C-alpha cells in the first residue's frame, strides 16, 4: 500500500475556542467545536471516509457503528445553527454505515451469490467512484493552465490596422417599400396630412439649412443660383417660405429697402 495519496494536513487546522486544533480526529467522532472546521475541510462524508481509510487504517468494514451513530445524533441540535444542509449529508452517511453494520450482523447464507449482496459493496463502489474524481480533480489542477502557467498574447498592437466597417446593402426598392408602409399606416390611423410638396423643395430646404450651419447669416440673393433658371428660383423661394413658416429660419431686413438676410432664429419661442 502506498503513501502517495496522503492528505496534506497543516500543522494547525484551526483554532477552536483558543486551542489549536492540530489533529484530525482518530475516528468518525468529531468534537462539536470542530464540526464547522470539519465540514469545510472535507468535501463531504465520502471525502471524510476516504481520509479515515487512508489515514487511520480504519477498516470501514468494522466501524464501531453504534458509538458513531450516537455521537452523530448528538450533533443534531448543534447543527441547526450551522450548515444544516451539509451536516445532513454526514448524518445520512452515518445512517448508511449503521445500516451496513446491521445487515452484516444478520446471518448470511453461505453461497457464492450472496457475495453480490454484500451490503458493503455499494459503499465501496461509491468510495471508489468518488476517489477517481477526487484524484482527477487534483490532476486537473496540476495541468498547465492559462493565467497561471501559460499566457496568451495580448500585446500586439493593431493601431496600424484600419478596420473597414462593413455595412448592410440596401436596395432603393426596400426604402420605397418601407415608405409605402409608413404612408399606409398613417392613412389608416388618423387622416394624416400628407403634404404634396415637390421633393425638390424639401431638398432645397435641407441644403439651405446646411448652408446656414457654415455661415450663420446668408444674404437672400445668395440662395438663388442664376444657372438654375426660373424653375430653380421658384424652388428656392418655396423652400425659404416653407422654412420660414415652420420657423426653421427667419428673414431679416436691417433697414427699409435694405438687403434681405436669412438666419437661424435666436432663441426658441416659448
Amino acid at each position, binding site marked *: 500500500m502506498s503513501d502517495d495519496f496522503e492528505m496534506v494536513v497543516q500543522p494547525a487546522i484551526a483554532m477552536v475556542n483558543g486551542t489549536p486544533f492540530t489533529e484530525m480526529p482518530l475516528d468518525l467522532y468529531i468534537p462539536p467545536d470542530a464540526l464547522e472546521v470539519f465540514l469545510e475541510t472535507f468535501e463531504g462524508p465520502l471525502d471524510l471516509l476516504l481520509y479515515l481509510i487512508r489515514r487511520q487504517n480504519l477498516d470501514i468494514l468494522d466501524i464501531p457503528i453504534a458509538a458513531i451513530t450516537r455521537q452523530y445524533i448528538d450533533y443534531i441540535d448543534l447543527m441547526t445553527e450551522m450548515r444544516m444542509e451539509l451536516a445532513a449529508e454526514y448524518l445520512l452517511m452515518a445512517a448508511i454505515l449503521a445500516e451496513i453494520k446491521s445487515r452484516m450482523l444478520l446471518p448470511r447464507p453461505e453461497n457464492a451469490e450472496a457475495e453480490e449482496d454484500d451490503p458493503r459493496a455499494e459503499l465501496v463502489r461509491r468510495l471508489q467512484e468518488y476517489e477517481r474524481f477526487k484524484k482527477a480533480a487534483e490532476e486537473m489542477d496540476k495541468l498547465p493552465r492559462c493565467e497561471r502557467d501559460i499566457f496568451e498574447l495580448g500585446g500586439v498592437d493593431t493601431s496600424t490596422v484600419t478596420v473597414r466597417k462593413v455595412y448592410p446593402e440596401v436596395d432603393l426598392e426596400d426604402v420605397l417599400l418601407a415608405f409605402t408602409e409608413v404612408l*399606409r399606416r398613417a392613412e389608416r390611423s388618423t387622416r394624416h396630412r400628407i*403634404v404634396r410638396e415637390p421633393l425638390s423643395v424639401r431638398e432645397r430646404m*435641407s441644403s439651405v439649412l446646411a448652408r446656414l450651419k457654415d455661415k450663420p447669416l446668408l444674404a437672400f440673393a445668395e440662395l438663388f443660383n442664376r444657372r438654375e433658371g426660373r424653375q430653380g428660383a421658384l424652388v428656392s423661394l418655396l423652400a425659404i417660405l416653407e422654412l420660414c413658416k415652420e420657423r426653421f429660419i427667419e428673414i431679416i431686413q436691417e433697414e427699409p429697402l435694405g438687403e434681405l438676410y436669412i438666419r437661424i432664429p435666436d432663441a426658441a419661442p416659448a
Partner: protein
Amino acid sequence: MDLKDIVEAALFVAQKPLTVADLQALYPEGEQPEAVDVRAALAELTEEFISRPIELKQVASGYRFQVRESLSPWISRLFEERPTRYTKAFLETLAIIAYRQPVTRGEIEEIRGVAVSTQIIRNLLEREWVQVVGHKEVPGRPGLYATTRQFLDYFNLKGLDELPPLQTFIDRLGPVADTDMPVPVTPASYHEPTEKPEKPESDPIIPPDPTTAGTGETAQPD
C-alpha cells in the same frame, strides 16, 4: 533564463507598452537586470523581428510589438463584423427623412406612429446617409435631419427629385387602402433588378390601368 526571452514574452503578453523599468520589474528585487542590458535585449529583438510581419516599436509610453501596416488589408478582416440586415424601422426612418426632410425625430415618430430608437438615428448618421442640418426653434431645439450626398450616391440618384414623387405613393394607397400593400412603382433605372421582399400574393388594389398594363407591372409570384 535568458533576459531577451523574458523581455520578448513580456512584450507579447502585456496589454500596453512596457518601459525598461517595467521589464526590469519582471525580476525579483535584488536580481533585476541593468537598464543597459534590457536596452541591449530590446535592440537585439528589434533586429530579430526585422523580417517578420510584426515589429518591435518604441512609442511614447514604452516598447510594444505591432503589426506592420502593410498587413492591414488582411488583418482588418479579423475585426470586421458581419453585416446584418437593416430593420424595417431603419428603412422607414430613412424613407421619412428622405421624403420629408428636414425633419425632426419627433416628426418622424409622429408619422411612423412609434418611437424611433436612438440606435437607428446613430446608424444613419454613422453611415453618413443622414446629417443634422439645423435645429428647430421649438423647446428642446431638436435636430433637423436631412439626407446627404452620400445617400444619393449610394442609391445612384442625382437628386432627391429622382425619387418617385410622393404623389405616386398617395395615389397607390387608394381610398380603401387598408388591406394589402400596394406595389410602389420603382422605375428600373434606380436599381438593379433584384428579388423583392415578399409581398402578398394578391395585391392589386391598384385598378388595372390600361396605360401601364402590360408594361411589366404584373404581380410576380415569388
